[in-house]
């Protein structure tokens, strides 16, 4: 679906109707786009559940410039969804998108009914090496993200989506991002300090979905946030790195459906 918001064209895969009482909203990670949610988006549509996998400004098919901070992105998400007529969000985010979703849940109060945070950790530290490469050596940054972002199992393979190579799929998404997007996004993750404070202000049920082999946001890095949340649980997906939906699509599907089920 295509929308106009704040003079940008904003794209979201999926569909919804303004009469829908609740919409599943999916938010991608750094330099990614709606394609990371492709199977999930199709599934929710298959079961007639309204769903929008949004391309943040400057990502995928959306125009504009990337939002410079997590709080700014959270405010944008709440304003955008309000503007298009989504009142209640069943919200999921991956990686940077998880930080945005957490902050939005804290700021959005009762508008967020359930929250799923995939590939989440707080603080979401980004190494100087990666940050510098994202600024001036894009190919190296994409290679680091591919090698570190996928678990050992993904580098070997055996993807349940026949014939698809998960590591290359996520790398191609990075390559498609416009210049500067990865650096802006990683800088926003690195600079975000409000995770624990946000967690204390979230009232809805929260599920954190982590990969057992995630080197970028190890499962243990969600622990402090879990302790600050009122109603949280963690699901660890075996044999997965940070790119859960492409590495372990079926296990991630089941965890996400359970997390967002009414």
């Amino acid at each position: 679906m295509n929308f106009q918001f704040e003079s940008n064209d904003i794209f979201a895969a999926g569909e919804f109707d303004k009469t829908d009482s609740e919409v599943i909203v999916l938010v991608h990670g750094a330099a990614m786009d709606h394609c990371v949610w492709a199977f999930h988006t199709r599934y929710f549509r298959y079961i007639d559940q309204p769903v929008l996998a949004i391309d943040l400004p400057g990502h995928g098919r959306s125009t504009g410039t990337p939002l410079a901070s997590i709080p700014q992105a959270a405010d944008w998400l709440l304003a955008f969804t309000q503007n298009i007529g989504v009142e209640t969000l069943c919200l999921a985010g991956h990686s940077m998108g998880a930080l945005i979703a957490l902050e939005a849940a804290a700021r959005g109060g009762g508008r967020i009914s359930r929250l799923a945070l995939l590939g989440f950790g707080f603080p979401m530290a980004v190494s100087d090496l990666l940050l510098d490469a994202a600024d001036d050596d894009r190919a190296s940054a994409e290679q680091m993200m591919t090698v570190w972002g996928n678990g050992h199992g993904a580098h070997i393979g055996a993807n349940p989506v026949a014939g698809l190579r998960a590591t290359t799929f996520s790398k191609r998404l990075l390559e498609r991002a416009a210049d500067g997007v990865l650096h802006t996004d990683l800088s926003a993750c690195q600079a975000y300090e409000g995770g624990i404070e946000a967690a204390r202000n979230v009232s809805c049920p929260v599920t954190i979905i982590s990969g057992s082999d995630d080197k970028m946001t190890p499962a243990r890095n969600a622990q402090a946030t879990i302790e600050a949340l009122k109603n949280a649980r963690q699901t660890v997906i075996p044999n997965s790195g940070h790119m859960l939906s492409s590495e372990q699509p079926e296990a991630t599907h089941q965890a996400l459906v359970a997390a967002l089920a009414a």
Partner: protein
Amino acid sequence: MSAPKSLRPDTLSLHAGQQPDPATGARAVPIYQTTSFVFSDHDEAGSRFDIARSGHVYSRISNPTVAVLEERMAALEDGVGAVATASGMAAIHIAIATLMGAGGHIVAARSLYGGTHNLLAYTLPRFGIETTFVDPRDPAAFASAITDQTRLVFAETIANPRCEVLDIAGVAEVAHGAGLPLAVDATLTTPHLIQPLQHGADIAIHSLTKFIGGHGIALGGVIVDAGRFEWESVASKFPTLCEPYEGFHGLDFSEEFGPAAFILRARREGLRDFGAAMSADTASRILQGVETLPLRMQKHVSNAMAIAEFLEAHEAVASVAYPGLASHPDHDLASRLYPRGSGAVLSFEINGGREAGRRLIEGLELFSHLANVGDAKSLVIHPASTTHARMDDDALRAAGISESLVRLSVGLEDPADLIADLSRALHRSQK
């Protein structure tokens, strides 16, 4: 610190796409000899059919054993995904049909495997798809032949049988400048000698029957998609990828799957509707070949170089076409693109014309006279009367295929034995 490395090709040849079988612990790839797969419930059945959940449905569309081969080939080519097919020709046909329908146009190198030439020159026109053939050595010729209806640029990495070497980056630049993908048939080079997707090609196609299988016991093909071509940037040319597809409830492959649009449509339409699927048994056999591909290719190319040098010095041979030789017009390009060697197929002109060629072929004892390349055993054939016999005289001339041309596929035997065999037969051919 440099960027971390991905697993290297020799490792991927053995491991990519497979982890020990979760049910049995089997280390080798099990042969899932089944047509279909049980669904746990109604939701899983429907959502797998709708590409809303992963998992197999029916072995014409995907099968766990075949999927290992597909992912391994995708890994070796650095592609986003792959589809295995019943033969190399099926792979070419599905790749074309995924990109265009009636009214489409292809610009192709004029030096092609004879079967491919048949498909493009005689069969596809019946379905409204025309091809213009151009000199593979001239990127400008590709550019000149492109029309508003062109949807694909196609060539072989090293052409069969005259071994013209494609300037992949140069032709890719031409194709991309016109908003078109470049597909290459990389059968003669294999991922061990070159990864064409890293040189700018968008789609790599292989006959797995040849060097990749290596044993000459199984037919197969594969399409590998780089996942880099941005279909939506030229959406009007590629409605199969950029418009809702009624054959899949309005699915827009490019919009929903981005870098995997082409390869998913090739599977979900190409295998579903054309049905040229690979069997699990065949995939298992070809995987045995992939595991030793790097080792075998080293021997293939070193043997080929020794044979080429022997032939070039032989008085019964008028000329040798092998890019590893300094005398080949593409030698410099080949040296840059193929530092590991220029493959193991070569051709030569024998003095004495067709009759001398017949005596040579019938006089060989180690070289098998048959229509194949890439076997572990050395092979020989006379292209003008067999593999390229359907080409008319003009097309044969344009492709450099004369009555005196003999093609060799150099195998893994001791090169001294191969040279002795050739030496005897060449001597007899001149009597």
